[in-house]
């Protein structure tokens, strides 16, 4: 009577050899049934290893799953649900799994004791990276990660419930039943693909019938309850704040078969019932790691659940539960029996008893007692406590999260009866009526702990990381007596199984060495995740282009069709330049865009600039607080440049703000700072001055905004503006703004602003018209040879004009340094004003923004260069500042730059050295006025 379906055979390969198993098998059970002994190699000594457990505790049988040209390494064969076509391979060997060249480590093991590497490999100094370390690195590691993109796709989701039940064994199932009947929203999750827990692996009865019948009835009822969600193959791996749990649901182990291979769930639970069961632990004795030596509970799982009779089985146990295992020979350590050694390198052949008697054995079942799976009680730093009678750690009510209950074996209540009793108690506590207790076994725990059978030979504690009992005593001898030190020094419990089978045994060995009790020696803290989680699942949905959203401008389609190259500006994609046929490189395009704009007219999409509607009776007063200059006096129909400081006196952002009515301003921010500025304004509004009448709304996406710049800007704009509006210089001067209509009645806002230094306007229309407007502007502009220009030309023109931008507003510059000290109103307070006056932020020797031109006109200026006074040594002490923006100016036929120079304002005319080691470019530069073009601003006022 087993739970595999022999009518459904499944074919698979292991290390290239064909095998077959059945529906309901794990890879481990199928391999065992086919007599495979050696499944992999251990981490350090490369010892042959077989299958030790039957669940997620497995430390030995790690394999790779292959598919679609990649592999998933380090999978426990015991948790892989067999599927047809599975290709699995063993890992961590040089050669084959049966003949691993690195097994030489096993023969020189005395030289590889715990921490040996800390004491040597120090000479000669240079040999570490070149010789020693590469050798160590090659030998270390487990499976291999394929150097190709993960072909699988994952989901991420959010579930909400009243009660999350972790573990669908007897206690979890019964709890779910009661709560489900009471109409509560319940999630029942279990990492196994079949629900039932230990009942599946034992030969118990419930209500005098096979346990599987009871399980079937309960699952059937649960599956019909709309508020109950059954989640098999779901590992609840982490406990986070406020009742949030991380869980990983696996749909299939096959790689790249379409759909979501796994789903990462964030579960929001009102209460959590931990019914996670317990894990059996081994006993440390000489050569206890041979293939064929298994946990007794696993031997029973393979027999009862998977229908595999493991021949020639010997049992060693220190407790009654172990006696449930069928064995040809029983060694009950409570009667004084123990094992002196084992033999059989690639598969157990014999067991030598303390008497010297040698038993022929192919399998050895080890029953060292059970450890409750308390892991999830520790993720919020709860500490389990030692229960002496049960010889295990149990959850401590005092440190348990208030919204968590632990029941059944996870609480140290091991019998099926007590599991059911716990379930009813917790269901009652959670307000549900409970059914009569199902009738089940109630065997008491009878255990006399035996942890370690001492001897000269190595006895494994942490199988995967090859930590032996001797390593732990050696660590203690060297002063590493804190359990955390021992872990770190020996690597005990640090392998992929996180010490599931080794932590308590290791602690016991350490306690023995320190002559203390186990609770005196300590406990180890369990950290998330309970079981390893694929990084791909944690990143679900965010690979490749989906890593972050993409924001598109209203002219995106137009730009795509007109040769634009795009640049990332935060999440935005902006046109960088528009290449025309015949242009050899980006510089050709950018130079043309600049020249044509300065000679006639250019159009640029500036929608990405943040736009914030500021409305209210106190809007002017509010802006006075956030800007260094005054806005309350701004006339309706006018714009003003504004500089905003952080409270620490450093420039935060700048932009122009227009006044549309007495109570209505429209602020613009830089593209990068749109979000942070909005947040800051809301902080000022809600947290500092909640009594001001001000409302803020972001309108960045609402309005498509274009800059129209160049001597012909007005002529172009006049062609589209509706005839009732006058935009002559007299009627609509520099810094004017108004709501108007364009293209026969299209609502538009016109701002006479200039970033380029030319006669310029910014026009904004509801974004629905953005795409049409840009085409219309270009069509109407044909007679002027109008061009679209991108961010590069925009940058060139603003550098030519000497406007600070993101490179200058870099979070370390003051209004003074930016040459904007004069903007700071002396009549009023503003955010940042007080702290901007600290001694370290004022004074002549501070950095200030100036312009630079090469002395030798063929020299190139490079951004990021550091400045030095001519003739001084190039070292850190003499550093005079740095270059922040550089452009080739087609207008001046020269490279130009903006940068910060100590006392820069007073050094105009001086020749300094710009030093750039990164590009090997050292040049002499002349310090000039940062306003390279039209410093008087005549052009923008025409």
């Amino acid at each position, binding site marked *: 009577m087993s739970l595999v379906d022999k009518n459904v055979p499944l074919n698979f390969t292991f290390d290239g050899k064909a095998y077959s198993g059945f529906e309901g098998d794990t890879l481990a059970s199928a391999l065992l049934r086919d007599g495979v002994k050696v499944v992999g190699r251990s981490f350090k000594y490369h010892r042959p290893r077989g299958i030790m457990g039957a669940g997620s505790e497995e430390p030995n049988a790690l394999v790779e799953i292959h598919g679609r040209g990649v592999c998933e390494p380090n999978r426990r064969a015991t948790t892989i649900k067999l599927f047809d076509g599975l290709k699995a391979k063993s890992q961590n060997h040089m050669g084959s799994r049966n003949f691993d060249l690195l097994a030489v480590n096993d023969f020189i093991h005395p*030289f590889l004791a715990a921490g040996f590497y800390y004491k040597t490999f120090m000479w000669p100094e240079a040999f570490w990276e070149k010789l020693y370390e590469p050798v160590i690195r090659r030998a270390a590691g487990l*499976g291999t990660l394929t150097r190709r993109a993960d072909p699988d796709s994952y989901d991420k989701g959010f579930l909400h419930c009243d009660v999350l039940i972790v573990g669908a064994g007897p206690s979890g199932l019964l709890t779910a039943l009661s709560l489900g009947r009471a109409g509560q929203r319940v999630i029942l999750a279990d990492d196994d693909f079949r629900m039932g827990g230990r009942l599946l692996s034992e030969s118990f009865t419930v209500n005098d019938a096979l346990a599987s019948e009871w399980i079937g009835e309960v699952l059937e009822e649960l599956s019909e309850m709309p508020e109950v969600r059954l989640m098999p193959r779901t590992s609840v791996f982490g406990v986070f704040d406020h009742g949030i749990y991380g869980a990983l649901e696996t749909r299939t182990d096959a790689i790249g078969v379409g759909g979501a291979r796994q789903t990462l769930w964030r579960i929001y639970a009102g209460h959590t019932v931990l019914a996670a069961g317990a894990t059996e632990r081994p006993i440390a004795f000489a050569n206890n790691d041979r293939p064929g030596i298994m946990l007794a509970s696993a031997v029973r799982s393979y027999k009862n659940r998977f229908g595999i009779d493991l021949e020639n089985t010997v049992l060693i146990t220190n407790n009654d539960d172990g006696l449930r295992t069928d064995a040809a020979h029983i060694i009950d350590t409570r009667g004084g029996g123990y094992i002196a050694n084992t033999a059989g390198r690639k598969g157990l052949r014999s067991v030598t008893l303390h008497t010297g008697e040698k038993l022929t054995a192919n399998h050895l079942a080890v029953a060292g007692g059970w450890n409750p799976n308390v892991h999830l009680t520790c993720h919020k730093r709860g500490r389990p406590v030692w229960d002496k009678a049960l010889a295990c750690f149990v959850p401590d009510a005092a440190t348990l999260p208030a919204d968590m209950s632990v029941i059944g074996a996870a609480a140290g209540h091991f019998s099926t009866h007590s599991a059911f009793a716990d379930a009813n108690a917790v269901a009652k506590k959670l307000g549900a009526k409970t059914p009569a207790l199902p009738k089940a076994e109630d065997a008491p725990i009878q255990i006399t702990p035996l942890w370690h059978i001492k001897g000269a030979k190595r006895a494994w504690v942490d199988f995967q990381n090859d930590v032996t009992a001797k390593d732990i005593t050696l660590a203690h001898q060297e002063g590493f007596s804190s359990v955390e030190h021992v872990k*770190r020094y020996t690597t005990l419990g640090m392998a992929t199984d996180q010490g599931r089978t080794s932590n308590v045994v290791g602690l016991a060995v350490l306690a023995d060495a320190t002559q203390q009790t186990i609770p005196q020696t300590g406990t180890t803290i369990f950290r998330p995740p309970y079981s390893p989680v694929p990084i791909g699942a944690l990143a679900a949905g965010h690979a490749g282009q989906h890593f972050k959203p993409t924001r598109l401008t209203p002219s995106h389609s137009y730009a795509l069709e007109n040769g634009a190259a795009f640049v990332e500006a935060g999440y935005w994609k902006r046109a960088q330049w528009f290449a025309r046929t015949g242009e050899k490189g980006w510089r050709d395009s950018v130079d043309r865009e600049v020249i044509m704009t300065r000679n006639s007219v250019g159009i640029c999409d500036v929608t990405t600039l943040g736009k914030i509607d500021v409305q209210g009776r106190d809007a002017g007063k509010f802006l006075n607080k956030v800007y260094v200059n005054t806005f309350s006096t701004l006339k309706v129909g006018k714009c003003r440049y504004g500089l905003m400081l952080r409270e620490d006196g450093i420039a935060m952002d700048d932009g122009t703000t227009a006044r549309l009515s007495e109570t209505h301003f429209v602020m613009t921010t830089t593209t990068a700072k749109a979000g942070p500025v909005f947040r800051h304004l809301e902080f000022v509004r809600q947290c500092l001055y909640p009594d001001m009448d001000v409302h803020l709304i972001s309108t960045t996406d609402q309005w498509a905004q274009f800059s129209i710049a160049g001597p012909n800007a007005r002529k172009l704009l006049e062609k589209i503006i509706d005839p009732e509006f006058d935009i002559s210089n007299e009627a609509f001067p520099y810094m004017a703004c108004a709501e108007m209509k364009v293209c026969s009645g299209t609502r538009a806002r016109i701002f006479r602003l200039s970033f380029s230094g030319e006669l310029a306007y910014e026009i904004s229309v509801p974004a629905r018209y953005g795409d049409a407007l840009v085409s219309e502007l270009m069509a109407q502009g044909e007679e002027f040879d109008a061009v679209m220009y991108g961010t590069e030309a925009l940058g060139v023109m603003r550098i030519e004009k000497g406007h600070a931008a993101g490179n200058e507003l870099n979070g370390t510059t003051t209004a003074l340094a930016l040459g904007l000290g004069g903007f700071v109103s002396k009549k009023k307070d503003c955010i940042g004003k007080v702290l901007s006056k600290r001694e370290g932020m004022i004074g002549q020797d501070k950095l200030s923004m100036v312009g630079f031109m090469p002395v030798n006109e063929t020299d190139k200026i490079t951004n990021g260069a550091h400045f030095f006074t001519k003739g001084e040594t190039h070292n850190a002490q003499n550093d005079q500042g740095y270059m922040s923006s550089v452009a080739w100016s087609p207008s001046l036929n020269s490279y130009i730059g903006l940068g910060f120079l100590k006392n820069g304002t007073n050094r105009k005319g001086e020749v300094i050295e710009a030093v750039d080691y990164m590009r090997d470019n050292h040049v002499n530069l002349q310090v000039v006025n940062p306003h390279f073009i039209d410093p008087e601003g005549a052009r923008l006022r025409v």
Partner: protein
Amino acid sequence: MSYSAFRIFKEALTGHKGWKPVWRKAEPRAQYDIIIIGGGGHGLATAHYLASIFDKKRIAVLEKGWIGGGNVGRNTTIVRSNYMLHENEGFYEFSMKLWENLEQDVNYNAMVSQRGVLNLYHSDGQRDAYVRRGNAMALHGADAKLLDTEAVRRLYPFLNFDDARFPIQGGLLQPRGGTVRHDAVAWGYAHAADKRGVDIIENCEVTGFDIQNGQCRGVMTSRGPIKAKKVGVAVAGNSSRVMAMAYMRLPMESHVLQAFVSEGLKPLLDGVITYGAGHFYVSQSDKGGLVFGGDIEGYNSYAQRGNMPVVEDVCEGGVSLMPMIGKARLLRMWGGIMDMSMDGSPIIDRTHIDGLYFNGGWCYGGFKATPASGYSFAHLLATDTPHVTAKAYRLDRFSRGLMIDEKGQGAQPNLH
């Protein structure tokens, strides 16, 4: 006891019976010349340099738990000296030079492995900032190379060059950067300090300062009062808590930073890579685990643990940069408490209380600073003058407007 290959050979043949404790389990004495509070990397390094360079005697290190249990034992093991501001770069380059001679200095293999630290850039603006930084490094004698996309591809062909939301444009490489086996740093310094007579006293929690007339004369501890001529505090993560016992408030918040390790994998990644378009940096340990991390959680915390959003954010960064790691599995995560200072840079200074010295504010950059921090703090404790590379790390720099703000984020610690 001294370590050597010969010694290992001998011990291996004689059953490892001769190994002695790496450091003595010292009992507190009534009085010391100098007490260091905090048996982490910085505190133990300070003790080592006080004894070895400044020839000081009667030194104790007081540790409330076990040594190396704080941030030196819970970081991502990266060492580098690639800073932009001179106030930092000089200090971290000094630290790098000390790392390069660490093992010989302390006779303990901390596996200083200089396999390179590569910071990727994805925009012209980032590139220019890295050029400025690389030039600052060069001015301090550090090594820096600007790489273009192709050079990055030659180093790490498996990064996402084809389908990236933010394409890799290049990187700033510091070949001398790398990793160090973090726990071994604490043990190595403890070993060396112990050999020079420093008392390393574990399970000894400081519960108060003995301050009279503006003068610190010792400390109260869970194991009784201990007198000292000078007391140095090196308890990053808990600085505010400890200094509050001296009635000092600091320009600092405590935040939690999570770090992650994958299951062991065969060698894949030689050096350290930092993503410029997401919160993700990664290296591979000698044991084969990918060690990676990202940003701090963003809210004040003294709990050594974090939450899901950051885990996901870091993994999203990882997969977008290295698409193959989707198939690697996260094995373990942990959190450390960071002293986040108000400008992202540390403090090594005297306090207004005579005899009380402070070292903290390391943000999440404390590990790489360990040797220079120890050296500079020892210098300050021994000579009452700041070490030349740590002169800017003053407590009063905020009131004077002399912030050292690498990231330009201002007085908001969670943005540094």
